[in-house]
C-alpha cells in the first residue's frame, strides 16, 4: 500500500512504520484473537496488557547509560556491578524483573561485544527492545566468526592488538558491555557522562561519544 511518507524518517531516525490502516494481516488477526481469548477466559485484563506495554516503552538505553555513568564515577558501585550486574542495577531502582545480567568491561587491551546466536536474547529489561539488526541472520552468524569485520560495518575499526571477546547470550543470562570512560571527561558529572553512553556502546558495536560530540 503506497504511502507518501515512505521516503522520510521519523523523529527517532527510523522509517515510518506502516500505519494501522494498512490491510489486516493473518498474524495481526491472530494477535487480536489470542488477546481476546486470554481476556475472556480470565487470564489477562486489558489493563495488564496496557501496563506491560508502558513498562516496556519506559525501558530504553538511557537506563543502561545511567548504570554505566554510575560505574564510571563510583568505584564501589562498579565493583558491585561487576560482581552481580542484575542486583546492582536493581539497587539503582531499575525495574528489570528477574533478569540475570552480566557486565563485561572494556579495557585498554580488550573490547567486548554481545550477540545471541541462537535467537534474540538481549538485556531488554534494562535497555528496551533490541535493534532490528541484532536479530538478523547476518549479525547472529557473523559476530562470532568475524567480529572485526562486523565492527568495521558499524564504523569501529579496532587495532589488531585489541583483543575482542564476543559473548553469546542465552535466555537465562544476558550481557551488557561496560565501555571504557572516554578521555577528557574528568570534570564531568554522572548525568553529563550518561549522555555520552550510546546503545551500541553497551552492545559493543560502538564506543561512547567523545565529550565534544554531545
Amino acid at each position, binding site marked *: 500500500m503506497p504511502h507518501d511518507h515512505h521516503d522520510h524518517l*521519523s523523529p*527517532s531516525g*527510523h*522509517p*515510518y*512504520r*506502516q500505519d*494501522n*490502516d*494498512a*490491510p*489486516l*494481516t493473518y*498474524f*495481526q*488477526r*491472530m*494477535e*487480536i*484473537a*489470542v*488477546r*481476546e*481469548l*486470554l481476556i475472556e*477466559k480470565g*487470564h*489477562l485484563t486489558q489493563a*495488564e*496488557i496496557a501496563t*506491560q*506495554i508502558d513498562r*516496556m*516503552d519506559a525501558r530504553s538505553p538511557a537506563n543502561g547509560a545511567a548504570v554505566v555513568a554510575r560505574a564510571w564515577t563510583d568505584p564501589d558501585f562498579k565493583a558491585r556491578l561487576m560482581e552481580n550486574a542484575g542486583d546492582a542495577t536493581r539497587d539503582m531502582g531499575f525495574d528489570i524483573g528477574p533478569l540475570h545480567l552480566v557486565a563485561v568491561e572494556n579495557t585498554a587491551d580488550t573490547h567486548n561485544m554481545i*550477540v545471541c*546466536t*541462537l*535467537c*534474540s536474547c538481549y538485556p531488554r529489561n534494562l535497555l528496551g*527492545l533490541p*535493534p*532490528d*539488526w541484532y*536479530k*538478523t*541472520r*547476518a*549479525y*547472529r*552468524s*557473523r*559476530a*562470532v*566468526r568475524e567480529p572485526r569485520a*562486523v565492527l568495521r*560495518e*558499524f564504523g569501529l575499526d579496532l587495532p589488531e592488538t585489541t583483543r575482542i571477546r564476543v559473548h*553469546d547470550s542465552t*535466555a537465562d543470562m544476558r550481557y551488557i558491555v561496560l565501555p571504557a570512560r572516554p578521555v577528557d571527561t574528568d570534570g564531568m558529572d554522572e548525568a553529563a557522562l550518561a549522555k555520552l553512553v550510546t546503545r551500541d556502546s553497551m552492545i559493543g558495536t560502538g564506543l561512547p561519544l567523545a565529550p565534544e560530540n554531545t
Partner: protein
Amino acid sequence: MTDTPEHRWHDMGGQSAGPIPMEGHDFALWEKRVDALMVLCGAKGLFTVDGLRRALEDMGEDAFEKYSYYDRWIAATNQNLIEAGVYSLEELGQRMEDIAKRGATYGEAQA
C-alpha cells in the same frame, strides 16, 4: 543451512552471511501487544520461555525467512497456549474468522 546432527537451523553462529542490514523500524502497536502477551503469559505460568523457543525453532528456517519477528512470536505464543489448553484450535479459528469480518484494517478489526 538446514538441520544437521550438530546444528539445527537456528544455531547460526559461525556461518557466513552478507552485510548487517542496518535499517530499523518503530514498533507498531500490534507488535508491542505481542511482546506484552508473551511476557505476561510467561509471568503467569501459562508457558515457559523454553516452550516458546521450541515452537519458534520447530517452525523451521522457511518461517524465519518468510515471516517477521512478531509474526513468529505470536505464532509461538498461540501454539503454547493451545498446547496448555487455554483455548482450542477451533476457538482460535472461529475467532480469527470473526475478526476478518469486522474490517479490513487492524484498527477496524478491534472488538
